[in-house]
């Protein structure tokens, strides 16, 4: 056995001599991964957000509008009193509350689309939306769904061809004074009158022949374009995003980077008690001692990765869609990189305090920039653009490609190559700068 392997063996023995510490390397990232996975779990799209509604109008139009909102898959409506609703938003218990004041329902007529049915001082066309400032994204979603529900409510009022005809007749009268201007609007209204008349005649004919047709049959409110959701990943149409595959990779990487800092401290401790000197006195080269320590870190990384993704596969639906070989390649590259990161830290810092300060800041920055905490698309553009220059980004991209994205062996090779390139540079710096005394 070469001296390098003796050093690896020694560091592994020292590491596993502290059994509780060794267990922590598995348990902590696993718990963090599970927790973060549950937080970011998008599931089958049936998750809902709570929306408060204050109904001071009380009329059938607003009741129907609220029912439409409640029928939305992504919303769960709570009807509340004004003061209760306001208190809940202020306390952060509700992100958004819609306030339908008195008489606001009268605005929800089909003709409101063209200028409003109600006029005068009593007109109330304002719907206050109380928003928790920290949940602005929810507010935008609710506003969009409210707009949709309002349009449906307005159209539903004209599902009867007679009412539809009346609406267009009223509009025709309203626009008579426009003369020859607005020809498109006039053509649209004329077509609407014709459509309503045809619908009414068809309904009367059906009634005379005794068929079951009802007024409004043949009148469609369906949107002209249908949006059909389709998730696209390289692994094929059955594949989908697995939040645990992402968070296990992210939390594991973060924990392993911190473990690398801890291992660098171990080197400093050995330097302090003289064991490093003693190792050198045995004709073991400095490079073998440092690379052996990095090798032990890499082995521990591989074990952690295997256990954590194994648990992910068994209990959290993580799949290796690019095959085990691709996953193994990325895992090995990550392990080598973490070992080299330990060397870099041991070379750059010269004391435990420096390691704590610089190391912690660097690890947190690397994790943030690479998207280990929040999805990369939420990061500022300039950070996203720096992706390839951030080694940890290669880790997360590599694991995403090897697991839920299923990008294949080629992508894994690319990620592993990037990581190994960083590893060579980091190791060289660490070996050159490490202070032995």
């Amino acid at each position, binding site marked *: 056995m070469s*001296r390098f392997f003796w050093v690896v063996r020694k560091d592994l*023995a020292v590491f596993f001599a*502290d059994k509780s510490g060794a267990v922590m390397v598995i348990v902590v990232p696993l718990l963090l991964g599970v927790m973060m996975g549950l937080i970011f779990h998008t599931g089958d799209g049936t998750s809902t957000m709570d929306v408060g509604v204050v109904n001071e109008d009380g009329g059938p139009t607003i009741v129907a509008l609220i029912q439409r909102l409640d029928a939305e898959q992504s919303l769960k409506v709570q009807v509340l009193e004004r003061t209760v609703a306001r208190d809940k938003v202020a306390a952060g218990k509700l992100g958004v509350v819609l306030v339908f004041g008195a008489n606001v329902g009268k605005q929800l007529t089909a003709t409101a689309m063209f200028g409003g049915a109600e006029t005068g001082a009593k007109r109330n066309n304002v719907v206050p939306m109380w928003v928790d400032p920290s949940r602005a994204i929810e507010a935008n979603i609710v506003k969009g769904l409210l707009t949709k529900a309002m349009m449906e409510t307005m159209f539903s009022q004209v599902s009867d061809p007679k009412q539809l005809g009346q609406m267009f007749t009223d509009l025709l009268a309203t626009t008579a004074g426009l003369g020859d201007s607005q020809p498109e609007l006039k053509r649209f209204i004329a077509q609407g009158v014709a459509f309503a008349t045809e619908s009414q005649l068809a309904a009367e004919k059906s009634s005379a022949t005794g068929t079951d047709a009802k007024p409004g049959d043949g009148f469609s409110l369906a949107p002209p374009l249908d949006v059909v959701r389709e998730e696209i990943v390289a692994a094929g149409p059955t594949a989908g995003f697995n939040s645990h595959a992402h968070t296990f990779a992210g939390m594991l990487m973060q924990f392993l980077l911190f473990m690398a800092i801890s291992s660098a401290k171990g080197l400093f401790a050995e330097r302090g008690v003289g064991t490093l000197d*003693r*190792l050198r*006195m*045995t004709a*073991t080269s400095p490079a073998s001692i440092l690379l052996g320590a990095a090798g032990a870190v890499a082995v521990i990384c591989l074990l952690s990765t295997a256990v954590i993704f194994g648990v992910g596969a068994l209990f959290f639906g993580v799949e290796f869609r690019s095959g085990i070989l691709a996953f193994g390649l990325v895992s090995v590259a990550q392990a080598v990189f973490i070992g080299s990161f330990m060397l870099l830290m041991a070379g750059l810092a010269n004391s435990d305090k420096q390691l704590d300060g610089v190391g912690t800041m660097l690890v947190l920055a690397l994790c943030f920039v690479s998207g280990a905490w929040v999805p990369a698309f939420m990061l500022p553009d300039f950070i996203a653009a720096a992706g390839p220059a951030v080694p940890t980004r290669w880790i997360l991209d590599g694991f995403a490609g090897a697991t839920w994205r299923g990008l294949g062996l080629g992508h894994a090779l690319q990620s592993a190559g990037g990581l190994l390139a960083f590893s060579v540079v980091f190791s060289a710096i660490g070996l050159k700068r490490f202070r032995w005394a």
Partner: protein
Amino acid sequence: MTESSIRIAGLTVTYGGVKAVDDFSLSVPTGAIFGLLGPNGAGKSSTIRCISTVQTPQAGTITVAGVDTQQHPNEVRRSLGVVPQGLALYDNLSVLKNLQLFGGLYGLGGKLLNDRIGWGLALAQLEDHADKRVSALSGGMQRRLNIAASLLHDPKILVFDEPTAGVDPQSRNHILETIRTLHQEGRTVIYTTHYMEEVEALCDRVAIMDAGKLILADTLAQVLTQTKPRSFRFTADAPMDTEVVRNALREAGVSVVDIESESHTLEQVFLDLTGRGLRDAS
């Protein structure tokens, strides 16, 4: 003992511009037990680190068994066994695993490694404690293991850096006996300590250094006669008062029948040469 196992010439070691070792030269004859003495901060540890090849001096050369330490450090390490001052052991590993590690790193393997581990356990008298963690051993046991771990590769030149610091009398005696045995087997020994009686009991040659410089180097017997006696015992031909003797000596007119000088101890010589002020290591 004309041949030198270790030859140091013009050794200079600096830390941040401060000279810890200043143009230090020394020759350690083959087969000697050589005491290297000096107060704290004298430069002993820096000298030993340079001999051990783990520190590069700013100037000077060292040869160990005729091999230059800077040009062929690995060759030097194979012939050198250095017992460090600190307990440089992995205290959460067992005695056996420590010996396996250091034996392996010295390039031993298979039966030879097992044989040398058995030898080391016997040397340290730790045969019954092989599976114990180092942290569970007493201070004396740890010191003995510290020695055994440095000798697994059967080196011909041994360097002991304060090997008895903080051990009980039994372990100290065992360690000194071990060193005597190793010396009798033909090994050259360099021994540093603050315990002068150990050097007097063990060493045949002594070097004293202070402030990075060599003050003297000679046989122990020669070192003990380096300074004139400072106290006398005499018998006058008649009873007399102390004052009379003092006056007589002052005037040099007293007839002294017998004057017997009191032999110096090595500690007295050492203190005379290096002063009595405290030398706390900085």
